């Protein structure tokens, strides 16, 4: 067995015997998926509820609502007072009141749109949809088409990709902690005195993380499929997505293991980095409810690309070529981290 595989086998054995590491890699992601899968309503998280009070009751007003109601906006018909009450209770993003006389545009009064200020980005989306509806008017019938597989069928389909990323974060954190323990106990010194080159040590550790992440992600996806009926629409794309995630987190772990001179510094830096990536990457709060600036910022986190790749391979059913951008982003993160980790390791050594 080559020295790199010997080191990888040892690291995997240590991971399997570390109950704390197993908790973060397997149990916590499952708990996350169960909790958030139950919280996310069945696919409703992609819909924006708008309370509509149509006081015109004309073909023009209903046609406008129909035109505006595509792409995830759902109108609930209530009275004007009830509409505003629903917005105040957080049950609707906005309330719209179409005044009498809407169909006679020259005589009509403006449409009243009351938006929940705490849900600004969704409000802006509703406003854009209404503008589109007004532009189309009722004279132009809309031809609507549903794209199969793009919407989650259950909350679990949304929760499990994020849960897999939490599992990978757990693996990366566990291996970073094991690297710290090696430094503290002196076994790292023994490895450096062994007849292997530094890059062999790094490759051994990389193999261990990639194997652990791949197994962890595969187990979580299988649980999602078998127990929670999460669809895997692209069996060919799933291995690509999982392998890209695993390589990405393998590279990150190598880098995290050298971020600091002391065990405490490495531990703090590793977890802070991973949690920050999770926060802005959509593993804590879904990207769909993030404000626009945060969605832009999230591109700096590999967690976002991991979730996109896994969602694409599971319920979204994206063809492989559409998965490639996310997979390339993950590989780029992984390789850049690995190169930086190798450079810093050499300097530390």
């Amino acid at each position, binding site marked *: *067995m080559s020295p790199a595989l010997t080191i990888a086998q040892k690291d995997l054995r240590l991971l399997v015997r570390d109950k704390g590491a197993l908790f973060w890699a397997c149990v916590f992601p499952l708990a996350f998926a169960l909790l958030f899968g139950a919280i996310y309503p069945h696919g409703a998280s992609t819909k924006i509820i708008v309370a509509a009070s149509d006081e015109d009751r004309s073909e023009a007003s209903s046609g406008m609502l129909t035109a505006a109601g595509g792409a995830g906006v759902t109108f609930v018909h209530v009275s004007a007072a009830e509409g505003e009450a629903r917005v105040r209770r957080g049950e609707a993003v906005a309330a719209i009141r179409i005044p009498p006389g809407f169909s006679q545009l020259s005589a009509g009064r403006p449409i009243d749109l009351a938006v929940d200020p705490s849900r600004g980005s969704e409000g802006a989306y509703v406003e854009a949809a209404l503008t589109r509806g007004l532009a189309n008017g009722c004279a132009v019938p809309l031809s609507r088409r549903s794209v199969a597989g793009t919407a989650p069928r259950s909350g679990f389909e949304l929760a499990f990709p994020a849960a897999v990323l939490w599992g990978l974060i757990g693996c990366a954190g566990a291996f970073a902690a094991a690297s710290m323990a090696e430094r503290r*106990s*002196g076994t790292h010194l023994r490895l450096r*005195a*062994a007849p292997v080159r530094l890059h062999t040590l790094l490759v051994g550790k990389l193999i261990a993380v990639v194997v652990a992440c791949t197994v962890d992600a595969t187990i979580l996806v299988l649980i999602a499929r078998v127990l929670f009926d999460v669809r895997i629409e692209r069996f060919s794309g799933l291995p690509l997505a999982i392998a890209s995630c695993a390589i990405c987190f393998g590279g990150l772990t190598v880098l995290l293991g050298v971020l600091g001179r002391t065990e405490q510094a490495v531990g703090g830096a590793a977890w802070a980095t991973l949690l920050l990536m999770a926060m802005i990457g959509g593993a804590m709060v879904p990207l769909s409810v993030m404000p626009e600036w945060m969605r832009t910022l999230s591109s700096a986190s590999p967690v976002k690309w991991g979730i996109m790749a896994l969602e694409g391979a599971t319920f979204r059913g994206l063809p492989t070529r559409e998965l490639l951008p996310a997979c390339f982003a993950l590989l780029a993160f992984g390789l850049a981290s690995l190169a930086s980790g190798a450079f810093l390791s050499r300097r530390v050594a």
Partner: protein
Amino acid sequence: MSNLCRMSPSLVARGVKRRLGTNVAVDGVDFQVGPGEVVALLGPNGAGKTTLMHLFAGVLTPDEGEITVDGLTDPTRPEVRARVGFAPQATAVYDELSAEENLVFFARLHGLSGARMRDRVEHGLRFAGLFDRRSHRASTFSGGMRRRLHVATALVHAPSVLLLDEPTVGVDANARGHLLDGVAAHRDQGSAIVYASHHLDEVERVCDRAVVLSLGRVIADAPVADLGRTMDLEALLRGSGAP
């Protein structure tokens, strides 16, 4: 001293100097140890013993001077490291691996496999007195047992140069005797051994020669018995002795 040590030396250091930050930790050290010889490395804390061990093990590189192992220069090269066994000061075993798994790991890392590896692992288990507990995890062992396993992992590949940095720390009297017997057995098989210790009785029992360091320099190099007549070794090891 064994006749083996009259052969060409296994470990040689010539004019080795190493700075750690602004301090000169090792300052122009000349040192050698032959096959079948045990040389004690003595000195108070901060004398440079551990830095010198790290230089011999190839963990550090000298700023000046040269170190050879079996005639090969530059101990940082893997082919040179393969000839060296290093047991650092801290007990460095994997607590969640069994005694046997620890030995197998270090044996494989040094390129052993098959029957040769199995023989050496069994030898290591017997050396450590852990043959009957070979499948137990190191975390279940006492401090002394872990220390013996730590030393056993350093000699599992039968190195020609064995570096032991305070190997009996935390080991009880019985286990210490067992460990010292094992070191002597390795010496008799032809290993060159560098033995850093603060225990004079161990040095007198197992070492042929002693090299005394102070502030990174060699201040004495003589047979242990001769050294005892010229220096107050007890005071030196306590750190209060004048060179």
